[in-house]
């Protein structure tokens, strides 16, 4: 039996479906991310786990106990909000100790736990300050400490880093992951930032239009997307229309050039099939190599993205991007130049 079980949960708001048949088992201590665009149902699902929304149907069990209709204040689920939600009238120490006071802990026990939490978030000298005296990153660390001070069964984080600047976001996400590992709290993290989800999670749930598109480890989600949506939402992706030549052998043509793709193809000969290809799996090829696929095209455009350069190449009716490291000692092709691109069969994925 899994620690957190979300069984066929559905949420309907009037005429629209917020979440449609969400099924998932989460093990104790796992770090799960719900990833998807705005309005995909990830926050609604999180709020149902927190108890702020009641599912229209389905059930939620935590450690074997049915929590579907339990009010949020009786779930022992810690929550961190995007807007920090610190109580403005309380000091940092009083914010962190709030849940413990509500639970009726003794003054000494509260003081000790608050001290532990302040040490955990590396802010031991900030206890007497008020939220308005802290930066956004510090406020979110306090919010995290407040949520975990009550020793919750499950920790929920609703886009906790969205309001912070890029540098703080990266350092704080590492801190969140380190604290989660240290304490072993089962955690659900909602984000629309694929980099956050990929770098933090044990498993990622990619959601779209209220449904789960795919559940998998970061490597599975990134390298083996099962749907066109997952492939396009996670990372940058070329999706090319290919004509099936030999479905059993995995042979297709793109712009009249025959290629080998990984796995079996579930389509008839002559059918059009979307094939996904990550820009970083493609390289310029100096000479034909029998083990790799080759595509010839003409350079259309070059974009500098800092450490990498993204080159757009036209292949007849379609175009694709490939990424090259930005090295001053390596010459890049010029717009209009004919190039030969190479990639392994495993890099090309037939999408559903």
């Amino acid at each position, binding site marked *: 039996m899994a620690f957190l079980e979300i069984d066929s949960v559905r949420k309907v708001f009037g005429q629209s479906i917020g979440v449609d048949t969400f099924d998932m088992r989460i093990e104790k201590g796992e770090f799960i991310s719900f990833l998807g665009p705005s309005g995909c149902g990830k926050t609604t699902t999180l709020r149902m786990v*927190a*108890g*702020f929304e009641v599912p229209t149907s389905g059930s939620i069990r935590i450690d074997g106990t049915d929590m579907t209709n339990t*009010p*949020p*204040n*009786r*779930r*022992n*689920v*810690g*929550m961190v*909000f995007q*807007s920090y*939600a*610190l*109580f*403005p*009238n*309380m*000091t940092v120490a*009083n914010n962190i100790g*709030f*849940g413990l006071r*509500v*639970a009726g802990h003794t003054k000494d026990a509260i003081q000790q736990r608050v001290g532990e939490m302040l040490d955990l978030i590396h802010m031991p000298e900030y206890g*007497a300050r*008020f939220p*308005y005296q802290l930066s956004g990153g510090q406020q979110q660390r306090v*919010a995290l400490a*407040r*949520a975990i001070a*009550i020793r919750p069964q499950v920790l*929920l984080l609703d886009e906790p880093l969205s309001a912070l600047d890029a540098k703080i976001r990266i350092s704080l996400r590492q801190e969140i992951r380190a604290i989660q590992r240290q304490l072993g709290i089962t955690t659900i993290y909602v984000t629309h930032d694929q980099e956050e989800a990929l770098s933090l999670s044990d498993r990622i749930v990619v959601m779209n239009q209220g449904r789960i598109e795919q559940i998998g480890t970061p490597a599975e989600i990134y390298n083996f997307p099962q749907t066109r949506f997952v492939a396009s939402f996670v990372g940058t992706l070329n999706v090319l229309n290919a004509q099936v030549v030999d479905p059993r052998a995995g042979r297709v043509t793109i712009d009249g050039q025959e290629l080998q793709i990984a796995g079996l193809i579930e389509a008839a000969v002559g059918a059009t099939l979307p094939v996904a290809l990550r820009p970083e799996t493609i390289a310029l090829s100096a000479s034909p190599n029998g083990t790799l696929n080759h595509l010839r095209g003409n350079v259309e455009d070059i974009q500098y993205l800092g450490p990498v350069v993204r080159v757009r190449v036209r292949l007849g009716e379609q175009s694709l991007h490939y990424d090259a490291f930005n090295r001053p000692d390596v010459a890049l092709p010029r717009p209009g130049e004919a190039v030969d691109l190479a990639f392994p069969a495993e890099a090309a994925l037939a999408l559903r």
Partner: protein
Amino acid sequence: MRRLSIWPWVWLALGSLYFLLPLAATLQFSLQAKKGTLGFAAYANVFKDAKFFESFAFSFQTALATILLSVVLLVPTTYWVQIRLPRLRPVIEFFTLLPIVVPAVVLVFGLARTYNRTFFTDSREGLWFLLVGAYVVLSFPYMYRAIDTGLRSVNVLVLTEAAQSLGANWLTIMTQVILPNIVVALLSGAFVTFAIVMGEFTIASLLAQPAFGPYMNLLSSSKVYEPSALAVVSFLLTWGSIALFQGLSRNAGTPRVR
């Protein structure tokens, strides 16, 4: 450097004169009770009259009761509308206009007719409760808007959810999270309510209550200099209340280490 324009100062001076001149004239007149000299005789007469203190104390108590009842009724209502029934906001906004549109005379006759031959009209205490109820209605637009603005400024829904996730029940949320964060808004609503009740004449008079408003009116019909002295005193009391409010709100606005 930005050029300093004289016009804002001219308009400020004109505005101040419009406000201060009648006040200065009232003050001067109130000091002329004894012919040929300026003195505080009229003030002495006002303070000598026991009815001054009685009516002031009566209205003061009534104002406090009105504020208390308004807070008890309106804070949970406004809070609930904000977090659970936001679609009702336009309806409540419409209701807040009624006490401004409906004249006080209509209100008091409506109340008297509705509660005729009940505890509210057949006893002294009942009439006082009726008066407080009428004042709650009168101050409703100002109190509601003050509380509504206060609640909106602290993102009440997220604070509520944060407190709930930490195990707090509704009473704890209301007393430890919501109320402390809207103290300034409550004080501003309370001050306006206080000012309304202290100066109100129509309802108190029609319900035959010994309030400050009817006392001021009575005095102005029987004395010459004393009404002016009383007007100055009531101004000072009002300004004193403003100062008190500002002092309290300054303390409430700056959270202290506990």
